[in-house]
């Protein structure tokens, strides 16, 4: 691998001087890589994502994107927020098309192409028929799918996703995991893939999707270990049933078990 897509070097984040959310995190994210981040609640996953998105500066350390320091948000890094951050005054369609209509993501698209992409994305997340509904008229899982569609419609080069499938039922989750792998580019050669940073609580989800799983420890948030997931691609139901899959899940679970207990007891 040549220069990494994203490089975090000894990045720390303090809140109000005393709260250490992230401490000395160093991590290279490769171009076209699917990286999952797991760790107990409150260990700083969202904080890392916000810094990668350029929404919050690091307290110390450096963050580089394509060799240049990250100084703010950019349309090449799309974000799906843990609490969705949907626009309440816009319908499902209005939310999904937002970036295409008002941001650079829609440049070079004809109105017909734009409409086609918006409708296709809405269909992908299974919200066809709810296009005219407002966020407050949707269930939690539906809102999460709107947020997912809003990110997907923009087709950013880098996808930063904060627990994007957490509120979904098991079946929908499996369907959207497959869909996510397709959009990421699992069927394409590695150089043509997007780069994904995917936060999740579900270890099996991390193992199924990712090339590497970064395990964070809490208080303060540090990188505990990076686990390579060498399961063959394309992955599917056979992957989920394989012994290697179970073994990887087990070893990651053991890594974070004591952390999880510690976080829960506190």
């Amino acid at each position, binding site marked *: 691998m040549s220069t990494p897509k994203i490089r975090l070097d000894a990045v720390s984040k303090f809140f109000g001087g005393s709260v250490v959310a992230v401490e000395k995190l160093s991590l290279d994210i490769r171009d076209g890589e699917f990286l999952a981040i797991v760790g107990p609640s409150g260990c700083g996953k969202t904080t890392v994502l916000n810094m990668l998105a350029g929404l919050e500066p690091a307290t110390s350390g450096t963050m580089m994107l394509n060799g240049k320091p990250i100084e703010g948000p950019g349309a090449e890094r799309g974000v799906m927020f843990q609490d969705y951050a949907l626009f309440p*005054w816009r319908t499902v369609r209005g939310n999904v098309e937002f970036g295409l209509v*008002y941001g650079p993501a829609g440049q070079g698209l004809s109105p017909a192409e734009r409409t086609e992409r918006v409708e296709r994305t809405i269909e992908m997340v299974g919200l066809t028929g709810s296009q005219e509904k*407002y966020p407050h008229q949707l269930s939690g899982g539906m809102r999460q799918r709107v947020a997912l569609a809003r990110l997907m419609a923009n087709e950013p080069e880098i996808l930063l996703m904060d627990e994007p499938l957490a509120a979904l039922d098991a079946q929908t989750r499996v369907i959207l995991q497959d869909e996510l792998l397709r959009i990421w580019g699992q069927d394409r050669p590695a150089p043509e893939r997007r780069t994904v940073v995917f936060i999740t609580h579900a270890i099996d989800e991390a193992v199924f999707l990712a090339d590497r799983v970064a395990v964070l420890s809490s208080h303060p948030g540090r990188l505990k270990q990076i686990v390579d997931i060498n399961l063959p691609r394309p992955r599917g139901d056979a992957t989920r049933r394989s012994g290697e899959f179970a073994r990887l899940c087990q070893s990651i679970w053991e890594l974070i078990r004591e952390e999880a207990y510690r976080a829960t007891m506190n």
Partner: protein
Amino acid sequence: MSVVSSTNAKAAGPTRLGGVLVYLRTMALFVLAWYAGSLLVPSKLLLPSPLAVAAALRDTALNGELFGNALISLARLSASMLAAVVIAVPLGLLMGRSRLWNDLLELPVEMLRPIAGIAWIPLALYLFGIGHRLPLFIMFYTAFFPLLVGTAAGAAAVDRRLIAAARTMGLSRSTIMRRVIVPAALPAILVSARLAVAASWTAVVAAELVGAPNGLGYAIEYYRSMLSTPTVMAFIVTIGLLGFLTDKGLRQLSRVLTPWAQTGAAQ
């Protein structure tokens, strides 16, 4: 879908009718109390009976005086409201979102805001004389501050996560202002518009009382000097009614403009 809406309609029918009945009963009680009061108060000049007021309403309505004056006052209210919206809303957005603008405007605004619009009448009489411009100015002044302060507060309170979401989609600052801040602050702006209109109605009378040759306020003053209390009361009732109707109109407007913000709103 149709099942849902038809059950809704059934549920809404009786409650709406019930609301009207409650309203009528309240009004009837009020008019009865008024009537009883007018029998007890000996002077017709102090408290005319509701019947006398109704007769005055009918007479002024028939000779066109009621509608003519109401129309003039309404036109003045609309014009001054429009001017206030055009100036106060953009300024309020700037104040709510920019430190610089807030620091620049906060002091003068906080100094002018507590001064009632009608306090400017004597000065405005010198400046504008009697005519349209004086009531227009007073009503504009009265509407301006609730709008400015309400808009600024609404713009400052916009959920920062929504702004963050728009920034990650690469929107420019001005696009975020138009496509995120303005719609997110719109419910607050509409509430302050209702407050501004209500305040403007209270200023109408005072401003037209002294500063205009026509309008509802002028009519009240004119009939007071003619010692015709029933007609004075008829115009007062008209102002109350118009104030109620304009507020109802504005509430309807916010329902249309911000359907997403109407859930659970018990208005």
